């Protein structure tokens, strides 16, 4: 079975890496299948300087896929925006390395505009509030890195294996492929799952799904395929999904995947 994502490594640069907020984020990243590397500087310099040197060294050594970087290091005045200095150093040396700035102090339009002014508009740099939920951090990192996973877990009971082009139902050793979902039906479910993985609330418009249907009335054909997918997954889970479960038809605009509450 393929991993969710293989070999992704996130470098975490924060002087409060043992705080509850950071621990929750690290836990969530590890659940996602990402390895987390926490920068731990050696003593001898001021807090900010230590982190700057240790971060650059760690990027060279660990070759991370993305960096989660705090803005502020300690309470010393010189270190209030040390993270922005580190950001500049990283962007200069590794301009393609995605960086998510963890902001916690006086953030917002002004600060971001000022920083963005010194970056290219398409720099892979984004900002997120330190109060953001771990799920929000994961979603932002997925898009920043451009992650396309080999397999997409939908809750505990459904797994879309992109390489094998199969949908697995059940958990652990009881997991079995839903052989009714193949070909066009797999493509439809994969499109819904990939969109959900990237942004859980995003609707997949009919225009994007109708290319996987055929006949004179592609929308009717799509409706039939969607029903067959729901039946196949429901059969594997010994349940029956209603119209507002698993795959929703939203106001005649398109479909959206909703992980089942089992």
């Amino acid at each position, binding site marked *: 079975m393929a991993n969710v994502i293989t070999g992704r490594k996130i470098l975490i640069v924060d002087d409060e890496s043992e*705080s*509850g*907020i*950071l*621990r*929750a984020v690290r*836990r969530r990243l590890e659940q996602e299948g990402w390895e987390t590397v926490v920068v731990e500087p050696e003593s001898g310099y001021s807090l900010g300087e230590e982190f700057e040197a240790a971060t650059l060294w760690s990027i060279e050594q660990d070759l991370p896929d993305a960096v989660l970087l705090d803005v502020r290091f300690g309470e010393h005045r010189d270190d209030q925006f040390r993270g922005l200095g580190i950001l500049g150093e990283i962007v200069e040396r590794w301009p393609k390395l995605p960086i998510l700035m963890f902001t*916690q*102090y*006086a953030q*917002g*339009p*002004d600060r*971001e*505009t000022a920083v*963005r*002014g010194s970056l290219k*508009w398409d720099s892979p740099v984004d900002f997120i*509030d*330190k*109060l*953001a*939920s*771990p*799920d*929000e951090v994961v*979603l*932002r990192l997925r*898009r920043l890195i451009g992650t396309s996973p080999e397999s997409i877990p939908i809750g505990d009971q459904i797994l879309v294996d992109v390489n094998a082009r199969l949908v697995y139902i059940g958990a652990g050793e009881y997991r079995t492929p839903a052989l009714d979902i193949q070909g066009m039906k797999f493509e439809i479910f994969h499109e819904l799952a990939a969109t959900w993985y*990237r*942004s*859980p*609330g*995003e*609707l997949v*418009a009919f*225009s*994007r799904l109708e290319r996987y249907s055929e006949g004179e009335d592609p929308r009717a054909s799509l409706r039939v395929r969607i029903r067959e997918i729901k039946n196949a997954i429901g059969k594997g889970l010994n349940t029956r999904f209603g119209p507002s479960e698993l795959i*929703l038809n*939203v*106001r005649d*605009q*398109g479909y*959206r995947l*909703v992980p089942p509450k089992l």
Partner: protein
Amino acid sequence: MNKLFISIRIAGGFIAVGGVVCLILAPLIGEKVFDKLWLIEPLTYIGYVLIVAGLGVAVVSYVGSQIKDRSIHAMNGKNPGNSWSETTLQYFQLFDHDLGRPLRRIAGKERELRAVLQAGPGEVDAGVIDLLDEIERQTPNFRLMMSNIQVLIQLESPDNDEPLQPVEPTEVIRRISDLYTAVAAEAGKEITWWSEPAEMGLVYANSNAIEHIVTNLVDNAVRYAATHVEVKLTKNPSHFFVRVWDDGPGIGQQYVQHLFDRGWTPEVVKREEKSSSGLGLYIARSLARQSGGDLTVETDDRADGDHHTAFLLSLPSNLTAPLNGNR
């Protein structure tokens, strides 16, 4: 206003330079053209007058701008070394930092506790999970409140001039949806969003303004929706539109005219304690209009009908960079 004073100062400078030119030209003309020697004296006088007038205009303009700045600072009781908005922002940063730190600790502890409970044996009491969810739900409120104050300071600053930048509106909507999808799910509600076309492409706009307006609208919609919130992004050749729809009870027609008033909330009419500052929609519409767009509302509060509220944000979609990089 500051720009006006600067323009007057520059004009005064030009007049003074004109005076210097007259003074230089007077003897030159006199030396080269003997029969026009009489020009020397009047040209010299004109030169003197222009220098004095030009410098006078510049000095008066400078003094005028200083008096105006001092009166603003005196009105706000702030340090005249900084602009009004800079000083206010400094206070705000202090407030944000000092209040933010304990809130981050609370959120951190809540997430730790949730992890410990999940890892432990046996079922966790639903009431405990509800309490944790409630703490988690409050964090976006704090983020929005901070953002509201910050934008309000900028919006009402006399030096307000936000630059236009390349923005991908689809990405902005996606980001807001990511923030609120989890919040809505905890309250048993759902957010659906989509864009037509699927990727809108780049426009030159004030990305902070778009993000701020839509965040306020989605926050309201999640609060008042019965079960569903929809966010739809569309465009025409000159504008792009964000429609935020919720299936909540709707707003009475008698209140619609006050909806965007500063500080207005439904509790004002009922003379009850306000549940919010009433700044969100005021800021949202002000920002929209300042960006050359608008924010309107369409609502139905009939209990037996298709009750809903839909806010429509329209903003100009500049497809090329402005010449001076600013509005």
